[in-house]
């Protein structure tokens, strides 16, 4: 082979690398952010990456043309094989184009590799930025899936983790919306239509963050986790992924012995310290900590075993379950079930509320600071409240239910499912603080307080750990159980 061929190929590929484009790199660094390749380097185990689609085409003069808009790899993170990808907004707006991601989604489906990707960008490119009509393209949408049905297919089969650091609109936002978890950095945005489209359609001039800021999404559930910067985002993605695998053992929290002291006889209290005292030291990783704060969701470990934590949060709205809290629980149950994470449910809720628009006459004064219309909450259930009940009925992961104090209305079914469900709770216990014999508008429809035991708070951890040893976790199965609802 002529030496020139090798040199040409190398030269073409280098175009995309940071040393070849100092201006673009400086521009990225000025914003305090990492380049696409720096992001990936920090995310993966060194030396494990295999790049896909670095060459896009051959031009009419016979020169190789580099792919644009981002980079895609198969690599490992903490030894786990993954698909990793980053858009690159300095390169043609980060627009995805030639089908690389579709190809990798097909590989993820085939080999059951999780996906971690940075998805800032403005959607698909209208045409290949470096290729004209007379170029011969190498890449194409080969494989069984297009982009969005590819990510839909992965839902519930492998973890999909999206990181948004910058503006993410149109197709990029759609990829985020399909993902199991969306991690974002401050000032970023996730929206279906970007500022130019909004200006054209609605005549509103807004910055990306004003239009669809992740700070707003943190409140309303559009993202799962808002962290301080890209380093933290990468660390959070790795941490999230780590729960896909179990560890051999774990240490109890230093506060484990005093767990019972954290719950008062009456009145509100913070459930987070209770969770921390129950699970392995430092292992609680909360998801959606701000949205629908009256319930907690997150991952943790129990003697090394990965588990999902579902808990009432009496410190927020007394732990009342509104529509958002119900949907947060329903989606989390589907997530844990799909990825075979046993669920520990800590129940202490006075019941369900429904959100209604405030009466029109009261709206002008009652408008909230963020501009959203003011609302009133009233006792009662809606269809949203039945979502987690149906999710529990169809889950097959084991669930440990701990009733701390109260569980009124549909509270117990929403948090733990039914005592007679398809998959009954592997253990339902109560602490001595449990309220029994209380009659509410729901209790005749279930076998109230069907508890396997009443135990001291300090016994809870060991009970769960022992039972978990009898129920080994297995991800082996020929196909996914079900997709994870995106909402």
């Amino acid at each position, binding site marked *: 082979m002529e030496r020139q061929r090798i040199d040409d190929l190398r030269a073409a590929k280098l175009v995309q690398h940071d040393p070849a484009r100092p201006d673009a790199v400086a521009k990225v660094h000025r914003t305090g952010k990492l380049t696409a390749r720096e992001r990936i380097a920090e995310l993966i185990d060194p030396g494990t990456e295999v790049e896909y689609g670095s060459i896009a085409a051959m031009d009419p003069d016979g020169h190789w043309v580099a792919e644009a808009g981002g980079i895609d790899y198969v690599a490992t993170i903490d030894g786990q094989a993954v698909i990793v990808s980053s858009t690159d907004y300095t390169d043609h707006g980060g627009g995805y184009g030639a089908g690389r991601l579709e190809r990798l989604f097909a590989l993820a489906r085939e080999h059951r590799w999780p996906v971690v990707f940075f998805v800032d960008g403005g959607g698909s490119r*209208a045409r290949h930025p470096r290729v004209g009509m007379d170029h011969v393209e190498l890449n194409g949408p080969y494989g069984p899936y*297009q982009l*969005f049905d590819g990510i*839909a*297919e992965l*839902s519930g089969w492998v973890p999909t983790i999206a990181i948004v650091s910058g503006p993410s609109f149109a197709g990029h*936002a*759609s990829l985020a*919306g*399909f993902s199991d978890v969306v991690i974002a950095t401050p000032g970023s945005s996730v*929206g*279906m*239509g970007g500022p130019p*489209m*909004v200006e*054209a359609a609605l005549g*509103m001039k*807004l910055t990306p963050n*004003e*239009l*669809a800021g992740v700070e707003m999404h943190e409140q*309303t*559930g*559009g993202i799962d986790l808002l962290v301080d910067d890209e380093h933290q985002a990468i660390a959070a993605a790795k941490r999230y992924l780590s729960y896909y695998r179990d560890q051999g053992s774990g240490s109890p929290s230093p506060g484990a012995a005093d767990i019972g002291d954290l719950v008062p006889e009456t009145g509100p209290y913070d459930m987070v310290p209770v969770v921390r005292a129950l699970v392995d030291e430092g292992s609680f990783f909360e998801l959606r900590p701000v949205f629908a704060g009256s319930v907690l969701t997150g991952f943790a470990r129990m003697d090394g075993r990965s588990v999902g934590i579902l808990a009432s949060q009496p410190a927020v709205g007394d732990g009342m379950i509104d529509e958002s809290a119900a*949907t947060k629980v329903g989606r989390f149950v589907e997530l844990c079930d799909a990825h075979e994470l046993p669920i520990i449910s800590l129940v202490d809720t*006075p*019941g369900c509320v429904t959100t*209604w628009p405030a009466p029109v006459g009261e709206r002008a004064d009652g408008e909230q600071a963020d501009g*959203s219309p003011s609302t009133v909450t*009233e*006792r*009662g*259930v*809606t*269809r*949203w*409240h*039945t*979502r987690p*009940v*149906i999710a529990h*009925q*169809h889950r097959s992961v084991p669930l440990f239910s701990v009733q701390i104090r109260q569980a*009124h*209305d549909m509270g117990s079914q929403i948090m733990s499912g*039914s005592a*007679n*469900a398809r998959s009954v709770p592997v253990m339902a216990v109560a602490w001595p603080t449990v309220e029994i014999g209380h*009659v*509410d*508008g*729901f*209790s*005749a*429809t279930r*076998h109230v307080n069907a508890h396997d035991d009443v135990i001291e708070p300090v016994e809870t951890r060991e009970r769960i750990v022992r039972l978990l040893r009898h129920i080994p976790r297995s991800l082996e199965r020929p196909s996914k159980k079900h*997709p994870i*609802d*995106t*909402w």
Partner: protein
Amino acid sequence: MEEQAVQQILEARAASLGGGRTARRRLADLVDEDSLVEYGPLAGRGSSVEDTAYADGLVGGVGTVDGHPVAVASYERSVLEGTQSDRNQRKLSKLIYLAQTNRWPLVVFADGDGARPDDHMPVPPIVVYTRGRWDAYDGLAELSGWAPTVAVVSGRALDGHAGLAFLCDLVIGVRGSTIGSRFGDGGLVERGVEDYAARGEIDVLVDDDEAASRAVATYLGYWFDDGGSGEPDPTHDDIGSIVPDNRRRPYDMRKVITALADQSSVFELGAAFSPSMITSLARLGGRSIGIFANQPFSPLAGAIDSDAADKASRFVELCDAYELPLVSLVDNPGYMVGPDAERGGIARHHARPLASLHHRTVPLYSVQLRKAYGLGPYAMSGYGSSRKVPELRLAWPSVESGGMSLEGAAYLVKRKEIQAAATKQEARSIRDTYAEQMRDVAAGVRAGRTYSFDDVVLPTETRGRILSMLERVPRTLPAAKKHPIDPR
């Protein structure tokens, strides 16, 4: 046999049949004459022979509707405010269990004030419990996606009654009825079913109990799928004239649905919620189908916001679970954009219909009448490479497509020229000229040339084309449940 015992049974039965009149009238309206086998008519609040809590406030049994077995129940307000007790809930659970094991539909009239405050459990060992595998809640959750469940809210459904209703696939509200709670020290909280319908919690509103029973029978008819006339609607031949010549003028998609489906076969769900997306059960050549369609004649002009996405997604799950083939009628400017839509979570909600369409196994026939921009076509037709591709994607000659609205694209591409225009008229002319050019690229014959659609057909050819394909796909209910139906 002891005369007195026989006499007591006969008297107690007669008393029970004479009581609970509202519940009995409802069930009589619903089921075929003399078809009801009643369960637990002698159940009482207590166990004394003199007990007058007829049927313990829940009349229920198995009857037939249009010849098909259906489990039916109604709470009776005149008995202890229709409250739920251990006994009447065990009765309901038994009926749910029968529905589950036999794959029968279940219908329940939820008229009552939640749990009975002073309910007393029978003392063992005298009583042998009758119960189902499941309680009412998890039983309804188990039925979801397996056999149809219908709740009728007539009167007042508080707490546990509301919970039961919202676990059903279809909730029918009788106007003037309320849903609410009587929990705790807050007193009674209730709101009209109309309020719930407007936010998508109730699917169908009717005027009275009789209309509710007719609506139940109509809904179950699509599940039974045993025909109808199969005749086209009288307006069918004019279906093409419903879409105006002026491409920017709205029209009523309901007229298209009426003209396309069999005569008098359309039953709309969720009419009071998210008017930009229409979801209707219907028949085509006698076969039950589900139609979901954009509504250009709505405040959002057919744009898909979070509510519309949720509504479409749920409908796709419903039809997929019950093996009803889907027809989508497409004319939308894409997903809704702007700060309100983003606050409403469109970046996550938009994926729901896409995911539902991807995972469905029922056939989908889609017809693009006019426009579909951005991700709009996928929201209605799924992807060409999904697990289950659309059986047929048709377009009408008026079709137009693009990455975003043609006017919006013109605004972006011709921005400088538009801003420099001397008059508003000139600006509009620049925009419209460009939009017209772009429309021409993807419209009419050229939509067929690029094989963007399986065919471009005349409006009057649409019905026959879908019907022909539909005949090749017999409806077979799978042996196991595919998936539950997401309530929202």
